[in-house]
Each structure stands twice: as structure tokens, then as C-alpha cells.
């Protein structure tokens, strides 16, 4: 494990002890620091706190917030809430999957440039369908607009 990673994990364990041993808190802090919950972190916690690794994996796989792999450089969050659904959210996500050539069950493009996350509802239903691109809201959007933006982001890089 890298040295700076150990340092971060030590700090997280310290604040965890203050939080009466809240595993969710521990994992949220970990994800906050690394963008995902690395396997090495779980092994470290398991060793350090004498808690079975399965307990951590039980929590990370239960809650949709936790990721086991890093995200791509650009993160697109597609809302699939009810209002978005009836306004064509499915079309947007399937266009994006095609555009990014995401294989079944994968959410990150092979070049590591893009991650497409699906979320149950962003609570911005009045401007459905909604997509977040790197944290910025795009309301009343369409597959056309989103795909164009993805292409622009890709161009910027090259």
C-alpha cells in the first residue's frame, strides 16, 4: 500500500472511533478521500479494527452510494426517477451507453474518461429529464444534447 494512503486511512480510523464505530461513516469518509472504497482500505480496516472484511463488503454492496472501482475523469449522473422516466430518461441513458461503448454491467468507459451513474431521483423533477455532468445540472435535456456534450468533452481532452 502507498504510504500516503496509510496516512489517510489512519486519520479515518481515528475519527471512526469518535463516531461510536459507525461503519457507514467510515466507508463514506473512505470514499470521500479516494472516490471509491479500495480493497486495500477494507483490508487495512479489517486488520486494524478486528472486524471481518465481509462486514464492510456487506455494507458497501447494500448501499448504492459506494463504489468498488474508481470513476472516470468525467462523471455523468443520469436521473431515472419517475418524472424523468416518463420524459424519456431511458433514451438518454441508452444513447449514452452506446456513445461510450459501455459493456453490460460496466459504468466506466474503457479509456477511463467517462463514468455513467444512474440515480433513482435527484429531486429536480420539474425540469425533467435531468442529467448531471461533472456536478452541473442539465435540466430539460435530451439524448442529443447530452451526447453532443460528451463529444465536446472528449475533444477537449485530445
Amino acid at each position, binding site marked *: 500500500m502507498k504510504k500516503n494512503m496509510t496516512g489517510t486511512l489512519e486519520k479515518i480510523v481515528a475519527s471512526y472511533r469518535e463516531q461510536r*464505530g*459507525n*461503519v*457507514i*461513516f*467510515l*466507508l*463514506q469518509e473512505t470514499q470521500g478521500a479516494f472516490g471509491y472504497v479500495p480493497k486495500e482500505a477494507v483490508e487495512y480496516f479489517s486488520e486494524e479494527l478486528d472486524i471481518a472484511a465481509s462486514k464492510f463488503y*456487506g*455494507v458497501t454492496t*447494500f*448501499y*448504492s*452510494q*459506494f463504489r468498488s472501482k474508481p470513476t472516470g475523469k468525467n462523471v455523468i449522473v443520469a436521473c*431515472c*426517477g*419517475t*418524472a424523468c*422516466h*416518463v*420524459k424519456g430518461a431511458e*433514451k438518454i441513458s*441508452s*444513447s449514452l451507453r*452506446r456513445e461510450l461503448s459501455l459493456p453490460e454491467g460496466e459504468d466506466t468507459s474503457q479509456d477511463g474518461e467517462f463514468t455513467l451513474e444512474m*440515480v*433513482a*431521483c*435527484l*429531486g*429536480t*423533477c*420539474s*425540469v*425533467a429529464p*435531468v442529467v448531471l455532468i461533472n456536478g452541473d*445540472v*442539465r*435540466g*430539460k435535456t435530451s*439524448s*442529443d444534447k447530452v451526447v453532443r456534450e460528451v463529444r465536446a468533452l472528449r475533444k477537449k481532452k485530445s
Partner: protein
Amino acid sequence: MKPAIEVRVCMGPAGISAGGKDVIEAFGATLARAGVSAEVKERCSTHQVGCMGLCARDVLVEVHVDGEKTVYQYVKADMVQRIVDEHLVGGAPVREWLVDETYENFYRKQVKIVLSDCGVLDPEDIDGYIAAGGYGALRDILANRAPEEVINEIKGSGIRGRGGAGFPTGIKWDLARKTKGDVKYIICNADEGDPGAFMDRAVIEGNPHSVIEGMLIGAYAIGARQGYVYIRAEYPLAVERLKLALGQARERGFLGKDILGADFTFDIEVKLGAGAFVCGEETALIASIEGQRGMPRPKPPFPISKGLWQRPTVINNVETLANIPYIMRKGAAWYASFGTEKSKGTKVFALTGKIKNPGLIEVPMGITLREIIEEIGGGIEGGKALKAVQTGGPSGGCIPASLLDMNVDYESLAKVGSIVGSGGMIVLDEDDCMVNVAKYFVHFTQEESCGKCVPCRVGTKRLLEMLERITKGQGREGDIERLEALSDGVRTTALCGLGQSAPNPVLSTIRYFREEYEAHIRDKKCPAKVCKDLLTYSVDAALCKACGVCKKECPAGAIAGEKKQPHSIDPSKCIRCGICFDVCKFKSVERH
């Protein structure tokens, strides 16, 4: 004396996504530049107010000149210059940009209690809330009223849980007060997981102090010293504003030891949810706060007797708590004067879907669905016909257009097979397939099922498989009856509310739209033309202008055609994505 000018720009997510940030910046820059001199600038305070409700018209900008309010709609950054020049400098509002009749209609039938200060007060400023009477109820109670009196007032108001189940809040508090135990907790459930619902987000973002004051009053009534707000991590702005508000309340002595000099100690901690719909269920929510997987357990014991860390615990929804300060300030009788005999007060709904004016609305219980859809919502978008209104999210049902004159309250909605729920209200039009809607919700509950009990884990999966088959044209005779029988089994035997209510979308769509199921099963047709596998696309050669756009856009290479020759679609290659249908400007692509 120069006029006192205030500019309020709607900056909810809808406002932001319509360009609210640019509008605010433009106002800042233009006011400074236009020599609405430094002096005037000082008097201008540009509040970042919360949701004003009519998000469809964003960016909404309120301009107050000497207390006189003018509202502009659809404001873009490039319109700011003219508003400043003509209105703020010249004194004459820009008439053609003002809100129209729709805006008036949107508000006329509404009664704002919970939302009365949302979009009016600056949510990041505790002084604004205090000046509007905030924390006054708390001050009065701590000085003059016993916990039992508070409980009686709440009982008298008739308010019921706004999270969906509708349990009377006063009775819940009374039970908690009477439960023996020196440590008790109050939890605010802000895990607004229903897709299509955002009133809790709006309340916390628009007026976080009302929730905090509501929790304080609840804590005093039941005898709790510690509270928690369990809030979705998907609502970053709400979390930020809540934490800011808690800090301010602590500074002013509304939270902490010996609050306002009384023998009452209470504080609130924020707990972030990690994304699990089932955590809206109270026993699952408790497990999640304790750091476990959020899995429900059988009740009894109810959280009232054994909740968080085995201690007596009251769990109230955001909207319920935000009502409390207003009830205590104005009295139970005032609150009970709104609503019906059994459903008192108001309810906030998130009106969305195929409606002209989507937004956040607060209406008295008992209002008719027609008033909401036609008068407040302005009717259906694009001149289409209303088909159904879905209430209560994945736990609720679809109400057909024929029942538009029904009242909206706990009892009436239950009677037609739906629920008030947390307040999502999604309007569906003729282009929506009801089998698809049922499939959408069952897909959701199946994914969110925690897996603990068999009826929910296996039952929702089998329901989903059947619905998937039907929408793929593989439906069989007897499927409707099988869906009904299985739904009944899941409904009556699942462990928690998630499973028990999961079949509601299926049952209510079968009840009112049986013929649509039959069309899918028998004729292998989707009348609303939504279910992909039941559609075919072709080109009408007479209308085709051979522009080549569809051919270029088709991701499957299924369209052939030379220049100046009508194009055609190869059904064996077509993946039915519908892109050609969307991109054709000449309406030559047909969908059957």
C-alpha cells in the same frame, strides 16, 4: 430618499439549471456598472432565496421596490440589463417579461403553511427566520407550557404523518412521552427516496430552521435530549444548508445546554444516508444510523418503545416537523380549519410529469384532483389528453382521468387504490403506457428490496419478470390473473411497508387499465407506442425527402437509401431505438 431595492432570484436546482447563477452574476455586475451607484448597490441585497414553486417559469426574479413586488419569468442573463435600466433605474417595469395569468392561477388555489416562508426568507440567515416569528413558538413553550400541553395542541391540530403513512403525530408523541426511559431520541426522516418527490428537499433548502424548531418542540414534548436528521447524500445543497442552520441555531443558544435558560438540553446531528430506498422505513433507518445495513425488522416492538440503540425513538418526516412551529404559533384550531374531517391541514405535492406548470405546490387536504391538474397545473402539456395521475411513488397507484373529481386526502386516495405517500404526483398523458409504468415501479422496488424476506425478494422479482415478458410481446393468457394473485401474496405477507406496498402500482393499473394489459398480451401491441419490442419502424416513401439524417444517426446501420431516393429501414437490423423517428423533420418515419 432613494427607493429600497431588493432583487430575488430563484436559485433552486431548476433555477440553476435555467441559468440562475448567470442571472445573479449579471445583476451584480449590471447594478454596479449601471452606476446604480455604489450608494444604491449598498441598499440592494441580493438574496439567494429558496424554491418559489413554479419551477417551469424559471428563472423567476422578484424585484421589490419600496416593498412593491414585481415578478419576472424566464429571465436570462442577457435580460438583466434592460430590467435594471428600465425598472430599477427608470422606475417602469418591463411589462412583456412579467409573469402572466398562469402565475396567478398557480398560486390562487394554494394554501401555504409549510412553504409560507420558503422562497421568502433567506435560508442561510437565521435572523430572517427569527424576524418572521421563528423560534417564537419554542421560546413561548419553554417559558409557559408543559410538554403535555404541547402534545394536546398537536393532537388538536389533527396533523398526521406527512411521510406517507398518515399516523397522527400527536398520538405518536404522546406514546413516546409515556414510554419509560431516561434516554429518548427524535429522528427527522429526510431520506426522501420516492422517485418523483422533492418536497423535503425544498423545505430543508428553503427553510431549514422550521425543521430544526419542529424537532426542538418534538424533543421537548417527548423528553429527548438528542436528535438526528437522516438525510440523503444526493441532496448536497440541503445538507449544506441544514448544517449551516444547525451551526447558527447552536450559536444563538437554540441548541445545546439549557436552551434559552430553561431546563432543556437538546442537540441535533446530521447523518448522511448512503443510498437505499428501504431506509425510509423506520426500523431500516434506525439500523442505518447505527451503521448497519439498512434492513427492516418485524414490528412490534415499535421504535416508540425500542428504537435507536434500543431506546424509545420518535421518527417524523421533514414536512410534518416543519408544520409544527406554525401550528404552535397559530394554534390547533387554526390548523384544523384547513382540510377535511379526517385529514387536516395542507399537503405539499411535487407536481411533475406531463403537466404545463410542474412545480412544488401546497394545497389544503380535500382539494379535488381536477383543481390541482387543471387550475394549478394549467392542464396537460402540448394539448395531449390526461390519462392518469400517479401518486405515492412506488408504493402508490395510478388514478385514471375518469376520477379527476375525487378529493385528495388520505381516505379518498386509499379508496381508489392509491396513497398520499410522501407527495409525488406524476401526471401521465396518452403517450404513457400503463404496463410500462407498472414495470418501472416494480423494477425500482425489486432493485431496492433489501432481500430479507422471501415475499418481497422473490415476489417482486417474479412480478417484474412477468411484466417484462408482457412488454416484450411474450405475454400469455392468464398472466393478468397470475399478476393479481402474486401481488396479493406479496402485499399480505411481506415484512415491511416496502414489500407490502410494492404491488400497488401493478394492482391499480390492472384495475383501471386492464385493456392495455390485454392489448399487450393478446394482440402483442402497445397502444401508447412505448414498449420497444412491440414497435416497428418504417419510412413513408411519399414523405421522405432523402435528406439522409436518419441514415447518419442510426446507430445500427439499419437504414439504406441513395441520394434523392426514399430511404428504407431493414427490420432485421433495427434495434428500435427510435432515433430515426425523433430526428426526421418530415415526419416520414412511421411507428407502428
